[in-house]
């Protein structure tokens, strides 16, 4: 295992120490339980956004804490969801009284830990809503599985909803917007190489020199298929078409009903893409793939979108939701409306996303 680390068990702690030293004007870090929060939290009158998940996906989520995006992020161990006490303490720290939105990627562990955290926060009198992000089209059906995983759309939801909260949306409105972003976003990823979890010390899976894995998750989960390496154009086409041609996807998720004050099962359907749609195109490095290759992918993605009648109105290109040092790429397309474009453009000031200020 070749990594710039000290002891595997110290990776997350030391990473957080580094972040705290690097961005004191933007964020603060609390240890035991671990969470990163806005230096100016709580922000008066503003709905607070909290996300979290396993570490190893940097800059997500800690790098997105700050003005216009998240109020707090709860990092678990590498690829392991955080524990409810982290989310609870984070909620207590950033709550200004306007309530909390937990943005949760759809992994059984994350979902259950955030549910417990929500119940615990409510027991302490904090209003909490939760929205599940489940955008990975690599997972086919939802009836007999834990459903689609939460991947690239998470980053976009955090930016867009963060801007909305900043603008004064109330908890119900931010939650609704987050749901809208989720059902309009779809992603698909692939890997050229595996990553190595520090505690494990060896690659999670093996790929031959001429092989790649399509439909990979962000934790080194095996993908949909393994196949011979192809050209960037062919790979882009595979990923893009899986997304663009994905049909209406219906699933049931558990959400907290703010009015009825109970957990309810909500059925939701993603509308398929259609010619004429405006989209945000997000080309994401899995960590080890350099920018030069992302531009080659973007070039082809642009061409495919054009051919399919989709207009790319905004883009995001770079390593934003990664799997440690994995080489590979994921594509996310998010159908945009005017509200979303405006919120996307709104100022943001976090360690890893910054514009307009």
């Amino acid at each position: 295992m070749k990594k710039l680390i000290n002891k595997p068990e110290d990776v997350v702690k030391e990473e957080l120490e580094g972040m705290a030293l690097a961005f004191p004007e933007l964020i603060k870090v609390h240890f035991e339980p671990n969470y990163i929060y806005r230096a100016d939290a709580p922000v008066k009158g503003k709905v607070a956004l909290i996300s979290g998940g396993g570490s190893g996906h940097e800059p997500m989520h800690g790098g997105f804490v700050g003005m216009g995006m998240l109020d707090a992020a709860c990092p678990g161990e590498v690829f392991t969801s955080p524990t409810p006490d982290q989310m609870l303490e984070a909620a207590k720290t950033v709550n200004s009284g306007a309530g909390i939105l937990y943005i949760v990627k759809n992994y059984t562990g994350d979902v259950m830990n955030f549910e417990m955290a929500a119940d615990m926060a409510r027991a302490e009198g904090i209003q909490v809503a939760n929205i599940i992000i489940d955008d990975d089209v690599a997972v086919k059906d939802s009836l007999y599985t834990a459903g689609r995983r939460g991947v690239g759309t998470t980053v976009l939801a955090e930016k867009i909803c963060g801007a909305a909260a900043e603008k004064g949306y109330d908890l119900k409105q931010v939650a609704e917007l987050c749901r809208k972003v989720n059902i309009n976003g779809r992603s698909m990823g692939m890997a050229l190489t595996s990553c190595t979890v520090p505690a494990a010390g060896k690659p999670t899976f093996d790929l031959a020199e001429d092989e790649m894995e399509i439909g990979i998750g962000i934790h080194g989960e095996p993908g949909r298929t393994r196949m011979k390496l192809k050209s960037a154009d062919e790979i882009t086409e595979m990923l893009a078409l899986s997304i663009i041609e994905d049909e209406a996807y219906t699933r049931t998720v558990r959400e907290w009903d703010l009015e009825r004050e109970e957990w309810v099962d909500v059925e939701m359907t993603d509308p398929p893409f259609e010619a004429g749609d405006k989209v945000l195109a997000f080309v994401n490095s899995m960590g080890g793939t350099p920018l030069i290759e992302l531009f080659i992918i973007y070039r082809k993605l642009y061409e495919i979108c054009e051919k399919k009648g989709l207009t790319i109105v905004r883009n995001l290109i770079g390593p934003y939701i990664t799997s440690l040092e994995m080489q590979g790429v994921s594509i996310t397309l998010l159908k945009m409306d005017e509200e979303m474009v405006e919120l996307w453009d709104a100022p943001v000031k976090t360690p890893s996303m910054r514009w307009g200020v």
Partner: protein
Amino acid sequence: MPITTSDVSEYLRKVAEVLAENKEYLTELDSAIGDADHGINMDRGFQNVLRKLPAVEDKDIGTILKTAGMALVSSVGGASGPLYGTAFMQAGMAAAGKRELAAEDLLAILEAALKGVLMRGRANLGDKTMVDALTPAIDAMREALENGADLTEALDKATAAAEEGMKATIPLIAKKGRASYLGERSIGHQDPGATSSYLLIRTMAEMAHAKQA
């Protein structure tokens, strides 16, 4: 001989030991159909239980179990953290105030624990999860007790049923948790959570034998 508070503490220590021994085995199982951390998660969790235990050892069994549950919830993470955490917390509620447990009490506690797992994870039997080991184990224990078996015998039956349930996960397609993303590719692998559940049950039986001897 009823189960005492110190039996419960000793049980938690034994489980921590067993899970430490099986850390790599469980992680290995999880690497086939999950993300290669189940052993690491369970070991981290029970090490935390060991840290919290001394402060409550002289309390009632309910408090001890709830403390263990909270220790798990706040240190395991992943899917198994809330599941086992809820299980122990529910078990603790069922044992609230008690300082001794008869066999029937233990059964009730285990039933409460399983209910916690089902409430939290909403898995069905056959979804290839820990539920597939826990459900038959508790069923077997209940049946044994109904048929007049003593605690040791009943736990032996439970262990045998848990083992069978665990092995029966091998041919199943996972429908819950991370393994479910694999679809057909999950066939042929034993579920790590069912395996840790089996270890938890087996450790109870082993303690009962040791106590009898």
